């Protein structure tokens, strides 16, 4: 890799051991992916919940935080993905004091590095939306795919250590989706149905993700008969990234790098599409169906809810009560939680027996331990991303619309 004078100085240790670690890590990754050089980035976004950090990761962060202040502070705005625990709701979710302690240690270490604890996976809706062409070092696959696809920004999936390294050096290796060559469409899917609601959009993302199944493929979806909203594309992208490890999609006429199908494929011939029909979406739901089963926990999360989704959950719960023996959990960002508090939405959801957690996203919050402590197995959600993830934590997940999720929470069984 070509290194400029500043990178050479960091590598030589002239900016201290923290930045020396960062640039070394980035060179190892950059050389693996044949990056020619570094590209400056505008923001970094760190996925670093304490469940994945573990004691080893937190101790490592504390080591960085103990270095001299001028050597350890990030050089560009650096923000965080959801945390492992919300101090205002962890007791109700039967998370432990030990989890709260390690969480507090991780936060102290990040703050010492100059990281802003935004604790959100919808920062493109609530913190500072990226701009077309802007190079970024974003963690969270849902954040990356939305920023790349809907906003036309440029980021790879940056794991926590790499995103932190980018915050410390202000740059990232120029590979993958920073380069034009990787951004042209490679697979073509044609929609022959109209997705209705967020769960349908997530199911569609899951179908395209399963079929695409590679970080290095770029699906193009044509045939949309409607204008999708930000929340619909949020669920579509999050599921696509989760099921397929996909980081970029194009929707001709909707996403900025694809004014036409031809442009979506970078001027190459548009390939014959794989059709996606209503039956495919129905079959996707059927793969998780458990009608009649008792439901232990209903989860609205993954990604965190926008203010408009919060309002819809509150509307659906008005005048009703979550059944004894069933839990209903809503996860949102601290900014949206604060707005929901102010607008009375939190009170309406919690008044009906739900729990609103802020700065977490359920699956990053010791999901296995929560299941054991609360006796949860059957989980119902409108997030296709969550049904994909949560099976590995011992849950039996079912996907349904937000309306059916709320009706089932009230009935205590899957309707």
């Amino acid at each position, binding site marked *: 890799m070509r290194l400029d004078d500043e990178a050479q100085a960091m590598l030589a240790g002239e900016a201290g051991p923290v930045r020396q670690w960062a640039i070394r*890590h980035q060179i190892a990754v950059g050389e693996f992916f044949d990056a020619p050089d570094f590209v400056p980035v505008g923001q970094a976004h760190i996925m670093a919940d304490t469940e994945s950090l573990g004691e080893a*990761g937190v101790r490592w962060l504390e080591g960085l935080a103990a270095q001299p202040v001028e050597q350890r502070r990030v050089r560009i705005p650096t923000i965080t993905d959801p945390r492992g625990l919300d101090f205002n709701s962890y007791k109700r979710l039967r998370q432990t004091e030990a989890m709260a302690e390690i969480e507090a240690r991780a936060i102290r270490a990040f703050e010492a590095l100059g990281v802003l604890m935004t604790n959100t996976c919808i920062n493109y809706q609530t913190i500072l939306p990226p701009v077309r062409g802007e190079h970024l070092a974003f963690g969270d696959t849902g954040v990356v795919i939305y920023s790349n696809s809907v906003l036309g920004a440029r980021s790879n*999936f940056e794991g926590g250590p790499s995103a932190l390294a980018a915050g410390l050096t202000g740059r990232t290796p120029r590979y*993958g989706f920073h380069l034009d060559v990787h951004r042209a469409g490679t697979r073509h899917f044609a929609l022959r149905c109209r997705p209705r609601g967020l769960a349908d959009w997530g199911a569609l993302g899951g179908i395209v993700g399963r079929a695409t199944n590679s970080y290095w493929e770029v699906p193009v979806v044509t045939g949309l008969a409607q204008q999708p909203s930000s929340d619909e594309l949020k669920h579509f992208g999050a599921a696509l990234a989760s099921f397929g490890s996909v980081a970029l999609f194009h929707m001709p006429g909707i996403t900025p790098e694809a004014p036409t199908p031809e442009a979506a494929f970078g001027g190459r011939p548009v390939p014959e599409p794989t059709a996606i029909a209503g039956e495919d979406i129905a079959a996707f739901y059927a793969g998780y169906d458990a009608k009649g089963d008792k439901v232990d926990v209903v989860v609205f999360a993954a990604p965190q809810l926008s203010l408009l989704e919060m309002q819809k959950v509150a509307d659906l719960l008005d005048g009703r009560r979550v059944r004894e023996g069933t839990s209903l959990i809503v996860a949102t960002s601290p900014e949206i939680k604060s707005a929901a508090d102010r607008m009375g939405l939190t009170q309406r959801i919690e008044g009906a027996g739900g729990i609103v957690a802020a700065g977490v996203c359920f699956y990053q919050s010791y999901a296995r331990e929560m299941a054991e402590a609360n006796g949860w197995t059957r989980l119902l959600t409108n997030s296709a991303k969550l049904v994909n993830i949560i099976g590995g934590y011992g849950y039996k997940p079912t996907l349904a619309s937000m309306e059916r999720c709320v009706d089932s929470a009230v009935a205590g069984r899957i309707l």
Partner: protein
Amino acid sequence: MPIVLKCHRGIGPAVTGTALVADDNFSARYDLDRLKGIFSRPAHKLHGQSYVGKVLVLVTAKGGVASAWMLHEMASRGLAPKAIVFDRTNTILAQGAAFADLTLVDRFEAGDPTRLIRTGDEIEIDPAEGRVTILNRG
């Protein structure tokens, strides 16, 4: 006769170990019970099997940024795979391997390594040279 497979330059130290192969993918967050050291997602082809100390040979890395921290955390408890061999990795596992100093290679000249390497094979991985050698067929 050892069988030599050329691949892209990789990450981490040279190691030798026993292969555990599947025509499936990998995510530390989605697929594993990291406390027990086994594949835990029911739909995974290695469901119920231990990955500890094995050379995992899989097709690709799946979504889930958390794997970047998790390899380091798993290694700190001695419950990590010895190395990971992919047909093609995503960025997260490469970053995670670099952070954990875990051996990782991909992009083989002869194609998908899950069709070239068998479970039980003793294999030697040299990431700096971009070379995997099958020492003994399992």
